[in-house]
């Protein structure tokens, strides 16, 4: 349990009768006294699957003693689509549209992870420009995912205005994504060995402009939330989990780092050349909802830093690997050159075979460690495509996080896990 005793000065200070600035003591530790039992019948509350605070079709059955939570039983699977099964019937490139639809709040980084996993399996080395563009894709999706998280969590806890600000910024990113990929959510931007498309002309300047102006909105959100008495009261000391427990529960991403475990796949198992970028990984101390909020806020600032460095690194050059067994030749050549046409035909009809073997590739997704595990038997379709879903594994800790909390805390804790049902149910 958190023992924070810091008093927060309100951003807009109130004055008491003597004219002194009012300070609000926050984060009073809540303990569950075993004698606290009201000795009355326990109540069963059903939350969801159609409930705005469950962030999708999650259903929670909550056993209550008065207002105190005795037990939470989550029910998932309402959005189950069998993506892993579908993947076994598709070529590697054909799986990419499925990855858009798992974590649909950060489709770009899912695309990137799938391409990386397939490339590891096939032993392909991607070009420098492709690598930088993928870093940009990953960081943009981190920003949009965290913006949705902050906006909707604010609504869950009773703050409506920041939702409008964050969604306005998300719209700006979506405009960028739309200009690049032609779609807003179902992006399918990567291909095995390269990208579906290069960025359009002038896109870099739009992104630079976004990087310049976006942090101002973060500052506004920060002003609204970080020292807001209600926000602190609802989040501090709520849903606490220690570092040892967080590791034992296999938490990942901001959930793990808020508990004080400095593990970030970008730093500790670098991919896409992340080791060359200068950025910090925010780590919390208390492992409560408030520290998870702080971690995600800081991650957005760091993403902007990475985006700026990536823009500086982005040099003209080839985008796709120079291997027409993997990457489709240009359409103009397909129509005029016999060899190119054969390559085109073989790829479209037979797919790209991967050698016998297996690969587990993980990246730092906004929600945690996303892992794709491919097993290949030498054909163009994987034997097994396993998604290691970060929010599914993070959500599994919800019953533990909610023990002894109040019913209203369940909403705050569930929001702080940052779930997306498309990924949990797959």
């Amino acid at each position, binding site marked *: 349990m958190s023992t924070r005793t810091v008093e927060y000065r309100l951003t807009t200070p109130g004055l008491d009768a003597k004219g002194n600035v009012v300070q609000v003591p926050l984060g009073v530790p809540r303990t569950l006294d075993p004698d606290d039992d009201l000795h009355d019948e326990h109540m069963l509350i059903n939350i969801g699957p159609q409930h705005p605070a469950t962030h999708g079709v999650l259903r929670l059955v909550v056993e209550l003693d008065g207002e105190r939570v005795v037990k939470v039983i989550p029910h998932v699977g309402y959005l189950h689509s069998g993506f892993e099964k579908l993947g076994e019937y598709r070529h590697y490139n054909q799986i990419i549209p499925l990855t858009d639809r798992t974590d649909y709040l950060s489709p770009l980084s899912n695309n990137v992870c799938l391409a990386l996993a397939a490339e590891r399996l096939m032993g392909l080395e991607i070009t420098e420009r492709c690598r930088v563009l993928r870093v940009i894709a990953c960081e943009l999706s981190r920003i949009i995912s965290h913006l949705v998280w902050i906006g909707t969590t604010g609504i869950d806890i009773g703050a409506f205005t920041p939702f409008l600000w964050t969604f306005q910024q998300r719209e700006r990113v979506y405009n960028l994504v739309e200009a690049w990929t032609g779609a807003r959510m179902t992006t399918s931007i990567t291909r095995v060995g390269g990208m579906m498309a290069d960025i359009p002309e002038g896109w870099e300047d739009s992104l630079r402009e976004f990087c310049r102006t976006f942090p101002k909105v973060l500052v506004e959100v920060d002003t609204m939330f970080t020292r807001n008495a209600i926000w602190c009261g609802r989040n501090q000391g709520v849903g606490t989990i220690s570092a040892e427990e967080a590791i034992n529960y296999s938490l990942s991403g901001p959930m793990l780092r808020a508990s004080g475990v400095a593990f970030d796949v970008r730093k500790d198992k670098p991919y896409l050349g992340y080791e060359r970028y200068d950025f910090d990984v925010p780590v919390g101390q208390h492992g409560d909802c408030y520290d998870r909020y702080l971690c995600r806020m800081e991650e957005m600032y760091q993403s902007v830093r990475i985006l700026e460095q990536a823009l500086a690194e982005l040099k003209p050059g080839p985008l796709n690997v120079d291997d027409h067994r993997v990457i489709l030749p240009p359409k103009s050549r397909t129509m005029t050159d016999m060899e190119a046409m054969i390559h085109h035909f073989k790829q479209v009809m037979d797919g790209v075979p991967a050698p016998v073997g297996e690969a587990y590739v993980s990246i730092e997704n906004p929600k945690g460690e996303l892992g794709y595990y491919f097993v290949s038997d030498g054909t163009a379709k994987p034997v097994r495509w396993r998604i290691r879903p970060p929010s599914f594994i993070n959500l599994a800790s919800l019953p533990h996080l909610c023990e002894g909390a109040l019913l209203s805390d369940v909403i705050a804790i569930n929001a702080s896990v940052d779930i997306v049902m498309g990924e949990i149910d*797959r």
Partner: protein
Amino acid sequence: MSGADSAAALKARFGAAVTRVWESCGDTIVHVAGVRAHEILAWLRDDPTQRFDYLTDITCVDYRDIERPLEVCYQLRSLARKSDLRVKIELDKAQPLEVDSVYDLWKGADWVEREAFDMFGVAFRGHPDLRRILMWETFAEGYPLRKDFPLRGRFTRAEQTRQALGVNPEAHYSFEELGIAETWADLPADVQARLARGERGKVG
């Protein structure tokens, strides 16, 4: 100390229980005997030179070749050493698919083991709450990610729709949940009978 070193240490310590060590795409993969798997995984977690304290994932692989055994894969990580290891158990499909649960070692195994049970029918002995998780509890078509399961399911579309429409609203709560609410005794006798008859509960 890399994954290969861990594999060598396992071989030295457990000998014949480690049946195969190989590498693929830079990952070290160790096949171990199912009966000693729990002991080996516990050693990997607790031994000071190994310290695989983080369970990244548990999943199963069913190969297209029906002769090949079904595999249970444990993706382990040592956060301190930043090292990964994949441990595999092979299960003969002619025998009951059973392994020991590692929930007592890693709490994170809870839902991933339930999912492996749901999708492949592997029973994890000692798991505290082994129920279906993504499919509904009355799902009677089998285990979807097995290779012998057809892509569109075993039942016809009409049968699937009939079953979906025929579900009782009460059946959305488990016996345990109805027990908490103390409503089981209040249910009409015919509803009790329908629930007990298998509207939910036993699967497979």
